[in-house]
Each structure stands twice: as structure tokens, then as C-alpha cells.
């Protein structure tokens, strides 16, 4: 009976196959995009030579995996937004402006501005107010403040709402927001993000920092709509994984983290 010999051959074949596939799987999971500590120290030195200081502790060593997210923007229709603000009805006072009683809502390109000149009963908590509008956020702001739009816990850099409020309610609110929900959101395939080291070097070519001396105060990983305005006029908006590098002087640059290229820069 040669079946015993056949089994022996099969064992060796499968062993070889498993070793090969294991090596391949390990190779696939190898992260070539981590930044070594020595590289971080080099970046700090290069920055110093360019009159920039950066604390190496804020430079991330490892990158994650994120993908582009597509959101159907339910608020590209301005009258839809007006309906949510003014539940008791409104008057259209212009192409991009609405009013109801002492309240006004105006649109300037992608941005909306709400003002309440009358006493509005209700909460001064921005989160509650936004939830009533269909803007869902977990960030609590009991007396107004700024709330950033987040996806999967990560900020969308361009979309945020800032409000002044208090016990008498929200008196003024402005910002950008992409309104979507789970059903209208598509998560594209995740990819490894580019290492921050290359992006930090490219940052030196921007004009957002003071060449006579400045400091990097934050390096964030999040999402970007691709332009400094919120792009909230689109019916469908894509946000791409991005890095945002902010300086003490107030300027910042946003990079596409999947390609490592500059999306836009804002100088102060």
C-alpha cells in the first residue's frame, strides 16, 4: 500500500506551500510606511535649519489605513437647510437668504450664517441645536463654541460649525457641514497612508510658516474635502484621508495622505 508514501509527499508539499504563503502574508503586512526614530530626529534638525521648531513627540511614527469616503450631501439644497432651521416656516428674501421672525439664514458660497436677533427659546448647547437641524455630533458645547465634523472619530478639516450661545439659546452660528448618514455614505477601499516624513519635508516648500521663525503646533490625521472651503455645495462630496500641519503663526497646510501631495495651504 503506497498510500502512506503519498501522505508523506503531500505533507512535504503542503509544508512547503504553507511556508511560502506564510512568508508572503508576512511580507504583505510589512509596513514600509513607518517613520524611524532616526528619521524623526533628522526632520527635527532640518526644520531647525529652516527656523522651524517641531517637538518630535508630535510626529507620528506609524501611519494607519484609511480610504476615501463619499458622502451624499443632503444639504446641497439651500431650501432644505432653511426648512430645518425654521420649522415654523420661512420667507425667502434672496437667492441665498431666508428669514423667519427675528432669525435669518444666509449662504455665502459654501458657508452658512445663522443669526437669531429674537429671543429663541431653547438650548444654548450647540450639540443639541445641531441635532435638531439634522447635524449629528458627539462633541458637546454647552455654551456655544466650535464643533468639527467627524467621520469614524476623525475630523474633517474643513467642515465645522462655530456658534455663540448661552442660556438664552444660540444667537449666532456659522460654518460648513456635509450632511449625510450611514445609508448615503460610501467608504472606499482603505490604503496605507504615506509616511509623515515625506510630507513634513514637502511642508518646507509651502508659504504658511514664518520664515524668520515659527513652530509646528500640531500634526493631525483626518479627512479633507480637498479645498479650503467646505465644498458643501456639492450633492456628493468626497473626503480624502489627509494630514494637517498647523503652525504657531496660524498658517496651515493640508496634504493628501494617500499620495503625499499638497492639497492646499492657508497663510495667516
Amino acid at each position, binding site marked *: 500500500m503506497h498510500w502512506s508514501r503519498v501522505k508523506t509527499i503531500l505533507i512535504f508539499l503542503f509544508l512547503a506551500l*504553507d511556508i511560502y504563503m506564510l512568508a508572503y502574508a508576512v511580507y504583505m503586512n510589512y509596513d514600509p510606511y513607518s517613520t524611524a526614530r532616526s528619521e524623526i530626529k533628522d526632520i527635527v534638525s532640518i526644520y531647525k535649519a529652516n527656523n522651524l521648531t517641531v517637538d518630535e513627540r508630535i510626529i507620528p511614527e506609524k501611519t494607519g489605513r484609511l480610504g476615501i469616503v463619499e458622502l451624499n450631501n443632503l444639504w446641497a439644497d439651500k431650501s432644505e437647510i432653511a426648512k430645518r432651521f425654521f420649522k415654523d416656516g420661512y420667507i425667502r428674501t434672496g437667492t441665498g437668504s431666508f428669514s423667519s421672525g427675528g432669525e435669518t439664514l444666509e449662504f455665502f458660497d459654501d458657508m452658512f450664517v445663522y443669526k437669531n436677533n429674537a429671543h429663541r427659546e431653547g438650548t444654548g448647547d450647540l450639540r443639541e441645536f445641531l441635532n435638531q437641524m439634522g447635524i449629528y455630533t458627539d462633541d458637546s458645547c454647552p455654551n456655544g463654541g466650535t464643533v468639527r465634523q467627524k467621520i469614524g472619530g476623525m475630523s474633517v478639516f474643513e467642515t465645522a460649525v462655530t456658534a455663540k450661545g448661552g442660556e438664552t439659546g444660540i444667537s449666532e452660528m456659522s460654518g460648513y457641514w456635509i450632511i449625510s448618514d450611514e445609508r448615503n455614505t460610501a467608504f472606499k477601499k482603505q490604503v496605507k497612508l504615506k509616511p509623515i516624513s515625506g510630507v513634513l519635508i514637502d511642508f518646507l516648500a509651502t508659504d504658511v510658516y514664518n520664515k524668520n521663525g515659527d513652530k509646528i503646533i500640531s500634526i493631525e490625521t483626518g479627512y479633507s474635502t480637498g479645498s479650503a472651503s467646505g465644498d458643501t455645495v456639492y450633492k456628493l462630496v468626497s473626503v480624502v484621508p489627509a494630514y494637517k500641519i498647523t503652525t504657531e503663526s496660524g498658517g496651515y497646510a493640508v496634504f493628501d495622505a494617500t*499620495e503625499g501631495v499638497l492639497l492646499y495651504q492657508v497663510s495667516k
Partner: protein
Amino acid sequence: MMRKEVFKNITLVTLIFISVLLFSKIWFGDNLIYGDSFSFMKKGGGVTTIEVEGIIMPKRIVLTGNNKRCCILKGTTEYGNCYSAIKDFFAVAESETLKFESAETTEWGSALKSRSVLLDYGSTYSSSVLSKITMTLPQGEIKELILVPESSVLSRVSVYAKDLQGGAIYKAALPQGYSSISGLIDTYIVGENVNNLPFAFELGFDKVRTFNEDISQNTLLDSNIIIGLKDVVTPEITVSENIKSVMDDGNKIEDLLSAFAFKIGSVRRYIEENDAMVFVDSNATLKVYSDGWIEYAAENRGIPLDTSEDMASRSLESMYSLVRRTAKIFNMPEHEIQIYSNITDEIYGNAAVYMDYYFNGVPVIVDDNGKTSHTISFDIKDGMIVGFKQYLYEFSNTGGVATNGSMVSSLDSLNEKYGNTAMKISDMYIAYVCKKREASVHWCVRSEGTDTIEIID
């Protein structure tokens, strides 16, 4: 022994289980190479010179003989057989490796008036491009060729070429082909008397003439424009497009992005308020308008032209490849297309290249809020396509016809509009003008030295 076999069995089963696990992890796991860009030339886009011939064939073939003249336009039913015979002639001519020699400039006009076949390619081509579909031509920029069957005894056909760059006329004599070219002329000139289809130079419309103190001719026509004296009847058409159904198809979108060299994994997608779909990456923007056109603009690099071997031909092939590929993605029928712009080696540098759809032998142009556009346009910079626009229209005949006045009456309208302003018209033709997907028929003129088209109301 028994224990050994049990051990083997357990080991084998375990190894098979591990291999299934590892295989599924690799198969369904993330692809490290995800998001590679594809050159549109690599993925099913390449065309050959033979296919490009379709867009650089003669725009019109004018046959003269026995006091009659016939003008056959590209896209009409007679064109195919007529052009096929001419191609056969060129195949013979090429095999003879003829040598072109300088000829007198007066020979050109004489050749046109004589028993001849004029091949008008509509645009100027570098001889390297035109030689690929005709025969080896003299160096220069060529728009027209004339074939003259000169002698039945010697069976000789003379081929005339005019270099528009230097102004020289060249002539070569092929010691055969007389019967084929002469037979072609006899086949097609059964219609009009030559006086009903005169060339502009035969009527003196190509020169400034002063008749008296008050009357002078300031509008000049290119010598070889045929002056039509009769009203023109053209089939009416409807215009439609098929964009929405294509843009709902994810596979089609991927094909489209690949065609324009986008990295699929990092493309951002937007839909504007007017339902235009926008694709953006770090290099370029691609917009698909629900009204029926697509527009590409490169921020940085663009799409490289294939410039191996001779630049003008290969660049043209790259551009036509993109047009064909886009049309295929949008399930468009294969339109007749004709180059409108001049194709010289300079198109590799910085150039705007235009092409027109043809339907019923008539070119189609677009009136975009008062601005006339060609149905296909390219912006080329340093060997890269940095701009592209293509209207994704389909056409069908309604069964009705439109009647336009003769060319002469349209010229009168033009003169009335411009008064005494001097104009030199390099081309004048009937075209379908699409405005918001409604098509009407108009006379159009092209002024010398420009790519601008003027529509005559």
C-alpha cells in the same frame, strides 16, 4: 506503525487547514499594489496609423473632366468607393518610389482646371503624416494633392503637391495609373457642368478687385473653394446623449478614470448642483456634464502623447485613441471624425487641436452660448494633453430636410454684416450647429490664419 499513521493524518489535515487559512487571507486581503495608475495607451487604447487614416482622409474629392465637375464630400455614399480607388492608386505610386521636383506655380491652377482629381484634406498636415496614407511626399506642410491623368499613350499620371509652408509647388509623374484615375473621373462627373461648380480662382474671387470708386471686392476666398451657385438641401437631424446610464455604471466609471490616467484608489468624486460629476486627483480634474460633454483639465502633468518615431503622427494617434476610447465607454456609435486643425510637428509643443464629428457628410459644431466650439478639442503642452473636451452626442435623421441659400447668397449676407472690412476666407461649408441639443443647418466660414468658425445666420 499505527501511531505513525495517525500522526501523519493529523499533520496532513492541519497543514491543509493552514493552507486554506493562508490562501483566504492572501486572496481576500489588501492589495499592496492597489491604486496603480494606468497609462491610457496601455489599456486597450492604442490605434494604428491605418485607423487614424479615418480622420485625415480628404474632406472632399473634386473631380473635373469633360467640362463637368463633381464634389464628393466625406461621409456621403459615393465617397467610400471613390476614395478606395484613390488609395489603390497611391499604393501603386508608393511602390514606384517617385521623386517630386519643383514645378511652376501656374501649373497648380492649370492642373485644377484640367481633367483632374483634387484631394482636399481640409487641414494642413506635415508631409510625414500625410505620406502615411498616400505616398512619399516632399518635405513641407500639405493640404491638397492633385492627380492629373496626362497621357493615355504614356499611361502617365502627374501628382501635384503644394507646400503651404514654403509656397512651392511640386510635381511627380507616375508612369502608370492613367486608366484608373481617368476611369474614376468618368464615373463620377455625370452631374454638374463645370460652370456650376467653379473654383474661386476661376471667378477671380481670390483676388482684390476694384470695379469702380464705390465698388470693390474686399472679401477674398481661398483659391480652391468651390463656389456653389445653387441652394443646398441637407437632411435634418436630432441630437441625443446617453450619459446618465453610463455614469450609474461603476465599471464604466473605472474605465473612464483609467482612460484619463487617474489613480483609481485616490480619486475624489463630487456631484455638482447641476448634476455634473467631477473626479479630482492631485494631477487633474475630469468633469462629466449631464448635458452631454466631458472635460479634462490637468493641473500638473497631463496625459503624455506617444512620441516614439515621428512626433506628429504618433501624437495624432494618441489623441485619436483617447477619443475612441471615451466614445466606447459612453456607448457612442462610431462617428465619422475629421481633423479641423493643422497637424504639424509643432503640435507636440504647444497647440490646440480640434476635430469635428461628421454626419450625413456634414460637420457638426456646437454653439455654446454664442461661442462656437468643435465637438472634440485638445490642449497640448510640452508633449502632454493638458486639456480635452468631447461632446458625447448621438445623431439620427428626422426624415425632414433643411434648405439653405447658395454659397453666393450667404457670402452676400456676410458682406452685409462686415461692410467694407477686408476678410480672407480659407474655407466655407455647410454645418450642423448644435445649440442645447437642437441642431440647425447653417453656412459657416473659417477665416485665414485662425481656427475660429463664424456661423452665418
